[in-house]
Structures are given as structure tokens and as C-alpha cells.
């Protein structure tokens, strides 16, 4: 497993950092993935990652999966830009 989501500020380089949490992290077998020169929406990123890694396809298409961009809840249509921190996770269950 790679580095888990760190406390530092989102990265501002020419890449996006993608974090996975909880059951999704276990299903994918990784907590973090980096991508260079990616451009698209949150839903396009889900599709793209599933195409790159066939094992990820089913977990990433789960209907209740949620996404955040730069630590704010994001929509399927939210655009992703270089330097963004994107996160995918199942519905929250704290408290």
C-alpha cells in the first residue's frame, strides 16, 4: 500500500493526486495514485482509471461512491485541474 492521505496542502505540481479510503482502498489495494497531465471531470476520471486498471473498474463504478476535489465534496461533473487532490470513498459512517 502506498502513502495514505497526508495532512499537507494539496500539491500544486503538474499532476493530480488521487486518494482512496476505507473499503474502496482495500478493494483497489492502494491508498494513493498519481496521474500526470490529466484533464477531465470526476466521472471521466472514474471511467479512465477503470480502463487503465480492469480490477478497479467494478469498485470505481459503485453507485454510492462519493468524490471530493481539494477536500470539498464534488459532483460527477466537477472539473479536475493540475495540482488538484481528488479523493474517492464510500458513504461516510462516522459518529
Amino acid at each position, binding site marked *: 500500500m502506498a502513502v495514505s492521505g497526508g495532512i499537507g496542502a494539496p500539491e500544486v505540481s503538474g499532476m493530480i493526486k488521487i486518494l482512496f479510503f476505507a473499503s474502496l482502498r482495500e478493494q483497489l489495494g492502494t491508498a494513493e495514485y498519481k496521474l500526470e497531465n490529466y484533464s477531465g471531470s470526476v466521472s471521466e476520471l472514474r471511467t479512465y482509471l477503470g480502463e487503465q486498471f480492469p480490477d478497479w473498474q467494478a469498485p470505481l463504478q459503485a453507485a454510492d461512491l462519493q468524490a471530493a476535489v481539494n477536500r470539498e465534496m464534488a459532483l460527477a461533473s466537477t472539473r479536475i485541474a493540475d495540482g488538484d487532490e481528488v*479523493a474517492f470513498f464510500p458513504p*461516510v459512517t462516522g459518529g
Partner: protein
Amino acid sequence: MDFIEVRKGAFSVAEEFAALRRENRGDGACVMFVGSVRDFNAGAAVRGLKLEHYPGMTEKSLQDITADARAHWPLGRVRLLHRVGPLALQDDIVFVGVTSPHRQAAFAACQYIMDRLKTEAPFWKQESSETGDRWVAAREIDKREMEKWG
């Protein structure tokens, strides 16, 4: 005025209450919620929990929820503590304490903060039970409870 903390160690309700009330002359009402690990969930005997969070985003989410509560009700102090990591049966998980000059505002704000925390703050529970570890599924009831806040 707000104290928000995601922490591994246990918290002390006595210390939190003292911090809410110390030299707080204007607020006659204090409402506190403490959530703890139950021993039964969905039928399997639970032995313990592990709580995961999204460092950075979780704290930000709790700050946003608290700020929204302040925009709705006249609040004095707010203290919100949530544990992460391994937890044993009966351990306390979350503390939310608010003070206000008005009883109704204190109740409403404390409940509002908990309702939103349960539906949107990035925490995930994994239960250990006799039948193995499993990630807890989100409960529909928590989403329904949010609807009453519009």
C-alpha cells in the same frame, strides 16, 4: 470559540464540560452528545471498531458544519472531538458540546452538528466481530434525519 479535534486518544467528558462552562457567564444552557461503541450492530456481536478518516478534509468538514450551526443559532462555545484508530467496546467515539443563552438553540445546534457529521464528515467505521472484519454500511436513517434541516 470553536474547538475541533480529530484524535486517537480518549477524551474526557468532564474536561470538555469544564472547558464549555469556564468563565462562560452569558450562556445558561449547555447540551452535550456523546456517541460510543455499541456491542450489537446488524446482528453480529461486535468486539471493537477501527475508525479511518481523511486527514485535512475531515477537520475542514467539521469546521464547516460548526460554522453553519453558528449561522443558524446564537451559540457561545462549541467543542467537537472525534476519535480515530482502534476503539474497544463501550469506548466513546464522538463528543459534541454547545453552549447558548437559549436552551432550544443549544439542543437544535448540537443535534444539527451530529446529523451533518453522520452524513458528510469523512469517517469510516470498520467493525470486528465474531464473523470477521467488515466496513459498516451507511444507514439510510441518517440521511432521512438530514432532510428535516432543509
